[in-house]
């Protein structure tokens, strides 16, 4: 546990020791604000909720989370520090969890900094705070799921750009699977079980049900399984690399 935290602390230090972290957070906040107010017509709706805010998160995360996670392993592979790390008394799981937690905490910090929006809706009306909390929970889980994908793709290559593109492609797949325009198009020709199956591996249906303020154990289980699966695949990749 101490080892995991030591590794996480180092990774967090890496984020904040360079301007990248601050740039990332600023871009995230700007885009989140832009989509909420300009595209989502936050004020015009006249409803005291954060739906137009959360609605755009999958698309924001599609690019920002792979950007945040792309260097986690590929940088170690490029510099050769993975050799250093894995000759220290560290198990692959400790290293994976340490890195994953650090990045997740970083994303959580970025997400937390959107709190003025919550204050704003609270000032303007009487929002359902439970629903807002659920929205944040869903957003954090979505970021976590995408992050686990990014962590996995960064372990297969020492090139950060390749890692980024792979992660975006996989995340895009996860989004499109359950996105209504896609499922509608598919349902014209595919059998119902296929459409349902496709929708259930997509993140959108699970994300949206959390936005409605429903904490369904199936949705939580979905995100947790994506994360666990990717982290497990990550450990397999790391082991295969050294064999």
């Amino acid at each position, binding site marked *: 546990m101490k080892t995991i935290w*030591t590794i996480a602390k180092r990774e967090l230090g890496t984020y904040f020791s360079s301007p990248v972290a601050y740039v990332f957070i600023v871009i995230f906040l700007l885009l989140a604000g832009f989509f909420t107010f300009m595209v989502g017509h936050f004020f015009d709706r006249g409803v005291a909720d954060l739906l137009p805010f959360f609605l755009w998160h999958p698309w924001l995360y599609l690019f920002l989370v792979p950007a945040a996670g792309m260097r986690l392993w590929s940088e170690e592979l490029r510099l*050769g520090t993975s050799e*250093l790390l*894995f*000759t220290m008394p560290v198990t692959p799981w400790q290293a994976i969890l340490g890195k994953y937690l650090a990045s997740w905490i970083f994303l959580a910090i970025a997400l937390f900094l959107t709190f003025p929006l919550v204050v704003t809706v609270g000032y303007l009306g009487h929002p359902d705070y439970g629903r807002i909390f659920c929205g944040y929970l869903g957003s954090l889980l979505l970021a976590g799921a995408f992050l686990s994908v990014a962590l996995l793709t960064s372990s297969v290559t020492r090139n950060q750009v390749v890692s980024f593109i792979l992660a975006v492609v996989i995340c895009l797949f996860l989004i499109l699977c359950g996105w209504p325009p896609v499922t509608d198009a598919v349902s014209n020709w595919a059998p119902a079980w296929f459409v349902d199956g496709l929708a259930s591996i997509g993140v959108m249906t699970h994300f949206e049900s959390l936005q409605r303020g429903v904490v369904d154990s199936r949705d939580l289980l979905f995100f947790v399984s994506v994360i666990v699966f990717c982290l497990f695949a990550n450990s397999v990749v790391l082991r295969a690399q*050294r064999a």
Partner: protein
Amino acid sequence: MLANQTGCCPKLSHALCLTNPIGRAFSMALPYIHTHDDLSPMINVEHLTKMFGAKCAVDDVTFSVGKGEVLGFLGPNGAGKSTSMRVITGYLPPTAGTITVAGFNVADQPLEARRRIGYLPENAPLYADMSVLGFLSFCAEIRGLFGPAKKDAIDRVVQLCFLERVLHQSVDTLSKGFRHRTCLAQALIHDPEVLILDEPTDGLDPNQKYEVRTLIRKMGAEKAIIFSTHILEEVEAACTRAIIIDQGKIVANGTPDELKAKSPQAGNVTVTVGKVTKDQLVTQVEALTGVEKFWIVSEKPEHITLRIVPRGNLLPELLEAGTRNAWKIEHLDVEEGRLDDVFRSITLPDTNTAA
């Protein structure tokens, strides 16, 4: 058996080789038998084989290193030195064979083994975005050192590796020498019983090389150390024993003196004699039983220089003949053999049959 005997006393090995030229030709792949009876080996490598696909990087390598030993790992590029070291540290799993470090099997108890190993990888990789202090602090914490113990450990290695000047500098702004020493400091931070250093002096200037070599020799007294190098003089300066590895196989294993004795020139005697005519000297030398062959290197009115390839124990006989015939021996030199000759003769493909 001969290797074992001579292992006790480097001086003796030389004398033995003079008396017995066959001794020089004993199998170079002779496995080393540990002579420190009181200590079980800290690093024990048995039948280590490592394949990368169909390519065999390390082929059935067996050796051990005891406490107080500094083992030099020699070999041409791509001979399997780094791969062997990576397998011993547990970074790469072996294809076959067992490795124990301080009594822990690297495959079964990797963490216990790694806790006792300090490892300096080739090219000294470092986290580029950290300061030297931050990096050492991270390494100390990973090794389970916190609070005052961490501070003491960092202070110790900073002093040992001369890092005071760059302590707060970012790692990616360091010169190669400092990068190397930072990585070395990392390997020493938990005061490990076993040190594995992959080319620790690579890229250092001569002064730094000297410092690192001195450090290795000093630490070698109470640790088991393996280090690889291309620089043969380093082996003589710092090692108690050396292994030459070529194409994944151990081709020679012994003390630096033993290895030097394997040189084709080892044991040759160069003698400069005055007050004697050439004919007299040739006849007198020919009469000696210990002379395999000889030739005149230089001939001047005041003295003659001979080069003698001995057959057996030449030196006493030669000196006796000198006294008997009233030679004025001005200079006498017994060739010790040079490591680079040995290295070349063992690892060059055309002479490889000798090994």
